[in-house]
C-alpha cells in the first residue's frame, strides 16, 4: 500500500503503537485500518480479538487493564457513538485509560456523503466525554504517539488518536 507521500501508513503507525507498550487490542472492522488489524491478528506478542461492537470492546479492554495490560481499540469514528456510556460510566468513572485508534471517516477526502454527519460530530463528542484527542494528519505526526500514550496512562485518561483521510493518502 503505497501512496503519494511514499510511506506505508500502517507500518509507521504500528511501529509507534508497539513502541508505546500497548499489548492488548480489540478491533471493529474498517477498510482504512484493515492492514493494521491483519498485523494485530498475526502478532503473537500481544493479545487480540475482534469484537461485535465498540461498547463490548471497551468492556473487554477494561478487564484487560485491571490485570495490568495496556489496552487499545481499533475502530471507525462512527463507533465512538456506540461507546459513549461505556466511556463515561466505566472508563472515566473507574479511571481506566484506553487508547482509541480511530479512522476518521467523514474527514476531508471522504467519498461517502453519509459518513460526514458523524465525521463532523466526532470532535465535540470526544470533548463531551473527556477523551483527549491526538489528530495525526500526516506521517510525521505519528512521532507524537508514544509520549501522548505515556501521558494518558500516567493521568489515567483515555486518548483518541484520530487518523483522517489525509493520513492514509489519496490512494484509499
Amino acid at each position, binding site marked *: 500500500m503505497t501512496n503519494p507521500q511514499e510511506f506505508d501508513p500502517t507500518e509507521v503507525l504500528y511501529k509507534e503503537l508497539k513502541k508505546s507498550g500497548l499489548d492488548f487490542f480489540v478491533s471493529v472492522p474498517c477498510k482504512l485500518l484493515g492492514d493494521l488489524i491483519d498485523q494485530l491478528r498475526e502478532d503473537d506478542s500481544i493479545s487480540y480479538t475482534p469484537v461485535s461492537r465498540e461498547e463490548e470492546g*471497551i468492556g473487554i479492554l477494561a*478487564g484487560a487493564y485491571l490485570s495490568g495490560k495496556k489496552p487499545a481499540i481499533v475502530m471507525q469514528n462512527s463507533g465512538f457513538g456506540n461507546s459513549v456510556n461505556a466511556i463515561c460510566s466505566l472508563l472515566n468513572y473507574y479511571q481506566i485509560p484506553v487508547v482509541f485508534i480511530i479512522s476518521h471517516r467523514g474527514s476531508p477526502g471522504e467519498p461517502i456523503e453519509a459518513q460526514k454527519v458523524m465525521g463532523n460530530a466526532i470532535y465535540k463528542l470526544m470533548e463531551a466525554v473527556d477523551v483527549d484527542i491526538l489528530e495525526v494528519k500526516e506521517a510525521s505526526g505519528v512521532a507524537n504517539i508514544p509520549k501522548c500514550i505515556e501521558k494518558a496512562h500516567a493521568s489515567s485518561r483515555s486518548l483518541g488518536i484520530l487518523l483522517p483521510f489525509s493520513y492514509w493518502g489519496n490512494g484509499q
Partner: protein
Amino acid sequence: MDSELRQKLDRGDVMKRYQAIQEIMKVVTDELVVCNIGHPSQELFQISDRPRNFYMLGSMGLAPSIGLGLAMSTKENVIVINGDAAATMNLGYMATVGYNRPPNLVDIIIDNQANGSTGFQPSFTANRLKLQDVGRACGIENVYLIEQQTKIAPTLAEALHDQTGSSLIIVKTDVGLEAPLDVIPMGPGQIRDRFMAELT
C-alpha cells in the same frame, strides 16, 4: 417461558437471585468475580464482600466483557455474575466468548425473566428468548441450564474444573429481593484499586 417453570414460580418453588448468589459464593475461593450493576452487586456485597469482587456501578451489559478481558489476560479463574436482561443488552459478547473460548471463564446468567433493578419489567426470556441456545450457537462449549438451587454449587465446581473451553451457566430464578439492600459503600476508585492489588 415454559409452563413447568411458570407453575414452579407460581408455587414459590423457585429460589430468588439472593439464594443463587449464596450458592455461587459457597464454591468461590480465590476466583475473580465480576458482578452486574444494581441489585446483583448489592446482594453480592451483602453476602460476601472480598477484594476479588469487581462491582459494576455503570455500563449495564458489560460484566461478561470485563470478565472476558480478564480471562484473556490472566491465568486466574474468572466468574461473571450477570443477569438475563443485561446479557440481552450486549448479546454480541457471546460471539466474542465463543471466538476466544478461554477455559478460565465461567459466565453465570441469573435469569429472573425481568429487569429487576428498574421495576421488574418483564425481559425477553419471559417471552421466547433462550439464552442457552444463543450460547451454544455462538460456540460456547459448556452450557448448563439450572432450575434447582442444589445444582448450582456442583455445576459451578464442574465448570471451574473443565478446561475444554468457556462455560455458560443459566440459573432460572424468581424475581424479587430477599431483603432490603444498601448501596455499596465504596467508590469506583476503591473498588478498582483493591481489585487490581490482588492481581499485581
